[in-house]
């Protein structure tokens, strides 16, 4: 970063006597704009396409397949459509807050990218409180959503906004508590530090380190889904109840912003879990070449994250929505006590085996494989059960 700024000043694009701070600020803004416009937003768009395709296959449909190869450019077409649409601000709405709300939601989506550990050296800022920062800024969504719900001056939006606030604030607690076991085991809050404490092999991941971390991982994943307003916790925008929830009155670009943030948040959910429990970018040392190593790590990280993104889409295609009181009781009666117990359990575990227990990793990993095998068996059972496919229409 510093060398880049020094180089820019010496190259003379900004004039000979440009102040260092100004050049640094401009560089940061341009770079982050490039990252967000070039990585984050297209990613959110592509996720929307992938989600629609995955969802369609689950539902025996085809999904968008007309724009571009296999409909891949659908997200671009949708984006252009939304940008071209009229931006309506209702008469009775509070115009300032109404216009501001989508940006706050997007802000909560772009800020976590600053500490995203893509590889051993590809990270914008390796803060020593990285994971804390991550949970703090993602919770900013609630401000935007509440603002949108309130300022729309619409009862459906209001209910959606309030639901969202209640939901996100409640689920912060189990999510935060589920991070503790990992922090206890590593003694650091830095994203890179947590990843370095794990190994590339699954039995060295924190997911399989001991039973407590596995439960913590599951709770964190579900809580993160709840914070990201994903099914089965999509109450704030529950279509069949609240029309479109807090986004009811929005149109065009602003509406798109909410959904871009939702889809983009999937990546952040995946990244948090990957970092904490799935070994992050850890890849076996196959070469001394730093660049090649970094590329391999980048691929590893993204594959893990995208798998989690896929799982969350799959969950969305499977489960119905919980009711608001059940959502709350799930959080306070189940997740919060369990994650507290979990934290205590991890503390005891760490006290007994300060350097971790090698065997528990193998045992847990084997248990995971057994569950996977049972799952595949069930899938094959359902495939066989209704294998007889019947098509009356020759056009299918």
């Amino acid at each position, binding site marked *: 970063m510093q060398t880049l700024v020094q180089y820019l000043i010496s190259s003379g694009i900004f004039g000979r006597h440009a102040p260092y701070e100004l050049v640094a600020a401009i560089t940061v803004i341009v770079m982050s704009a490039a990252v967000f416009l070039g990585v984050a937003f297209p990613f959110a768009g592509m996720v929307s396409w992938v989600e629609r395709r995955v969802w*369609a*296959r*689950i*539902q*025996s*449909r*085809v999904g968008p397949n007309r724009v571009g190869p296999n409909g891949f450019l659908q997200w671009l077409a949708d984006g252009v459509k939304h940008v071209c649409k009229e931006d309506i601000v209702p008469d009775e709405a509070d115009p300032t807050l109404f216009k501001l709300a989508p940006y706050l939601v997007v802000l909560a989506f772009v800020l976590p990218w600053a500490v995203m550990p893509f590889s051993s050296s590809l990270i914008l800022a390796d803060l020593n409180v990285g994971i804390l920062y991550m949970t703090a800024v993602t919770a900013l969504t609630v401000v935007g959503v509440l603002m949108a719900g309130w300022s729309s001056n619409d009862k459906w939006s209001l209910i959606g906004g309030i639901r969202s606030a209640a939901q996100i604030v409640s689920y912060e607690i189990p999510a935060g508590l589920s991070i503790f076991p990992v922090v206890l085991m590593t003694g650091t809050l830095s994203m890179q530090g947590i990843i370095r404490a794990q190994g590339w092999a699954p039995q060295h991941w924190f997911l399989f380190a001991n039973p407590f971390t596995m439960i913590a991982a599951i709770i964190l994943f579900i809580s993160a889904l709840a914070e990201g307003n994903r099914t089965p916790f999509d109450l704030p925008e529950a279509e069949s109840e609240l029309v479109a929830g807090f986004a009811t009155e929005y149109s065009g670009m602003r509406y798109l912003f909410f959904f871009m943030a939702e889809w983009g948040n999937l990546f952040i959910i995946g990244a948090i879990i990957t970092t904490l429990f799935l070994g992050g970018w850890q890849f076996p040392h196959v070469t001394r070449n730093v660049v090649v190593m970094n590329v391999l790590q980048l691929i590893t990280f993204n594959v893990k994250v995208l798998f989690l993104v896929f799982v969350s889409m*799959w*969950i969305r*295609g*499977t*489960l119905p929505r919980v009711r608001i009181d059940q959502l709350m009781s799930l959080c306070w*009666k*189940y997740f919060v006590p369990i994650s507290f117990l979990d934290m205590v359990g991890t503390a005891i575990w760490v006290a007994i085996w300060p350097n971790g227990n090698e065997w528990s990793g193998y045992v847990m990993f084997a248990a995971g494989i057994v569950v996977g095998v049972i*799952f595949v068996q*069930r*899938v*094959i*059972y*359902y*495939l066989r059960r209704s294998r007889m*496919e019947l*098509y009356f*229409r*020759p*056009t*299918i």
Partner: protein
Amino acid sequence: MTAIGSYFRNIKDAVTTIFEGMAVTASHFVRRPYTVQYPDRTPMRVQDTLPIRYRGILEVDLEICTGCLACERACPIDCIVMVAEKDPATRAITISQFDIDIAKCMFCGLCSEPCPTGSIHHTTEFEGADFSLESLIKRFVKEPIPAYKAKKGPETDPRIAPILDRGMHFLDEWAQPGGEKSGSTT
């Protein structure tokens, strides 16, 4: 004690049922989708795949229309307007107007049922979108034409015979009161 039992039973139920549900949805990743990609990505025109009984847009074969007005009388919404004059001297019927308002038609099939020759029948065509209501009124008679007169024996005119055959084919689908058909034993 039961409270604690139900607490853990809830967790167990949730985990197992969600596991099963996920297995069902996972099995759909490898199944074929059930979508007709109408209109452009079908191996053949959808219209050609529809059964003969399909009640699409009405069509009239004027060559075999007897001018009996049975369809006009049967239509519950009067979307068929027909004018047929009988010459008192020669007893020949001249059809001077035969309009069907497709915009009004509800595709019930009550008009084609009483037709003695199958002249008025439903096609498998269903794409009827147009820019004005006027263009949806189908005017079959351009200039007054003589009505078809059923002959005693089989039809001899080589031009009309295939049309009549087709008409009777449509007619055969309808159940005859008290009559038994070849299909009735299947």
